């Protein structure tokens, strides 16, 4: 493979990394703070993509306005879901898991009924390429890396610097202790759902500028999100970042070297091995 082709696939991989990190950060927030496995997270991401599509194609908004509106809309949806579907089952992870399975069916079919099953596309506002040392980097992929990094820094500062962020950290570490200290678990769970679903919506909105979107696109995102969390360890933000970066690069580069199926096989087999030999993730601890 030539150096140019390699650098292209590395860049594709970095763009995928950005998407995976956003999905995994949202999922790890929701899972560690609410103590549930939210398998409808992929559908949240899908709805984010459709919200952006409708903002651009139907309401004629700009791309960034569409992303912001979609993030707020999907974040609000997340708060609603937390209140109606997950709060009644706090402390009962099995039942909450089944509810989120039901949500997969409902959300997929709501979108299917509204938008139809055909794949849809919308253009990225970034068309040009940036040339650095003779390597052409397309802006529409670079912007994903930049936005991903930006959101990551924001999330990190939010958790480090605000009381709510510190409360989230506390609850993910020791739920009952945090409740005893007077932290409002209801409110923090709602905030976690808002942030987690919002991050998924951003990821969905950006993926639509690279690939076509469809009502069943969520299961791919869920698989990748879970894989990243397993790599990095549940509840660990640095873990999600490193795991997402690795998985994105592998998914960007390996298909260019072999076939997409083999690349997928290598990815899943690796995750299975990691799960078996280090269930707490590469960087996680017991």
């Amino acid at each position: 493979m030539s150096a140019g082709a390699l650098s292209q696939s590395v860049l594709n991989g970095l763009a995928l990394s950005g998407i995976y990190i956003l999905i995994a950060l949202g999922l790890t927030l929701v899972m560690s703070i609410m103590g549930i496995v939210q398998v409808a997270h992929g559908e949240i991401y899908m709805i984010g993509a459709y919200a952006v599509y409708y903002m651009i194609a139907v309401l004629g908004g700009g791309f960034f306005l569409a992303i912001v509106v979609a993030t707020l809309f999907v974040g609000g949806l997340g708060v609603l879901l937390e209140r109606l579907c997950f709060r009644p089952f706090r402390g009962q992870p099995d039942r909450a898991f089944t509810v989120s399975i039901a949500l997969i069916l409902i959300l997929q079919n709501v979108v299917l009924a509204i938008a139809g099953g055909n794949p849809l596309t919308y253009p990225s506002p970034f068309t040009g390429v940036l040339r650095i040392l003779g390597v052409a980097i397309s802006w529409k992929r670079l912007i994903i890396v930049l936005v991903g990094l930006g959101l990551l820094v924001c999330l990190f500062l939010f958790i480090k610097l605000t009381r709510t962020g510190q409360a989230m950290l506390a609850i993910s570490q020791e739920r009952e202790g945090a409740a005893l200290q007077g932290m409002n678990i209801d409110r923090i769970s709602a905030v976690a759902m808002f942030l987690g679903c919002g991050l998924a919506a951003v990821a969905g909105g950006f993926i639509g500028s690279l690939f076509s979107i469809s009502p069943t696109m969520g299961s791919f995102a869920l698989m990748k999100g879970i894989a990243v969390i397993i790599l990095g360890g549940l509840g660990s933000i640095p873990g999600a970042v490193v795991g997402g970066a690795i998985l994105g690069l592998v998914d960007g580069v390996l298909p260019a070297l072999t076939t997409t199926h083999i690349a997928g096989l290598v990815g899943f087999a690796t995750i299975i091995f990691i799960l078996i030999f280090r269930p707490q993730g590469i960087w996680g601890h017991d």
Partner: protein
Amino acid sequence: MGRIFAAVAIACLLLLPLLLTGPYHLHVLILTMMYVVLASSLRLINLSGQMSLAHGGMMTVGAYTSTLLVMKAGFPFWVAMPLAGFSAALIAYVVGYPFVRLKGIYFSIVTIFFSEVVVLTAQQWQGLTGGNTGIFGIPRPSPVVIPRILRMDFSSKTDFYYLALVLMLVSLIILYAVERSRIGLILRGVQQADSLAESIGIDTTGFKVLAFTVGSFFAGLIGGFYCHYISAISPDAFSFLFTIYILVYVTVGGEKKFVGPILGAAVLTILPEVARPLKAFMPFLFAAVLIAVIFFVPEGMAGLPDLARRLMPRSEKRPARA
């Protein structure tokens, strides 16, 4: 009571093709019986306290095993179909030992990934599996002829109906026997108190693997049946969503009782056909039923009689205390 009910149900199922001659009705019933076996075998795995989401993957393994044995190795269907079950069981046994070390949801996750690996392998190994397009024109089962008594050549759906019925009854009898045996008791013990069972010398890992192996056997068996029934197989025939539906049958039916998954699979497959004008809304109804069950009857449909009894305590006299 239960036995009389089962006998009546079996008699009805035997006679049903005389009343329902439309191929579509028979097709729905054949699918229902497949789902009954799948849901009941999934419940056996759940009985050991771990939720497998590898059933779709195991069906794919079984379907390809049977197809390839018949089409490439010249095996008769009647040998290939049981081997389909055994191949899935063998794979479950091998991957079971590392998998069951994972607790709770992590076991479920690794089984999802296992199914993905099966799908990707089938897609990649084009020389053997036909890749993405899969394999078409899978032959029907070879005819069964007992002179003057029985003649089944599987050219009609009725013959497949009776084959599916026999498969279902045999599977249910085996699953019931396993559950009522010592093994079933131990599995329940493992489900309720993993560490306690281990502390009194029960090989919990071994029994979890056993449940996973036996449950997967039936998934492979049904996969083997299904590909010959519809005469085609493709890598993504039994997707993640397919497995989720099987899980929904178990949950809605109620996994505490043996009859639960049977009820769940039967009602949730036949109801959409009865309510055909609402077919476009079916996934919503499906999800609504699921959510209603989780919220209001966590023990599922099989738990409804108990629930009714609890809600109407006066209708029943309390047994006198000894």
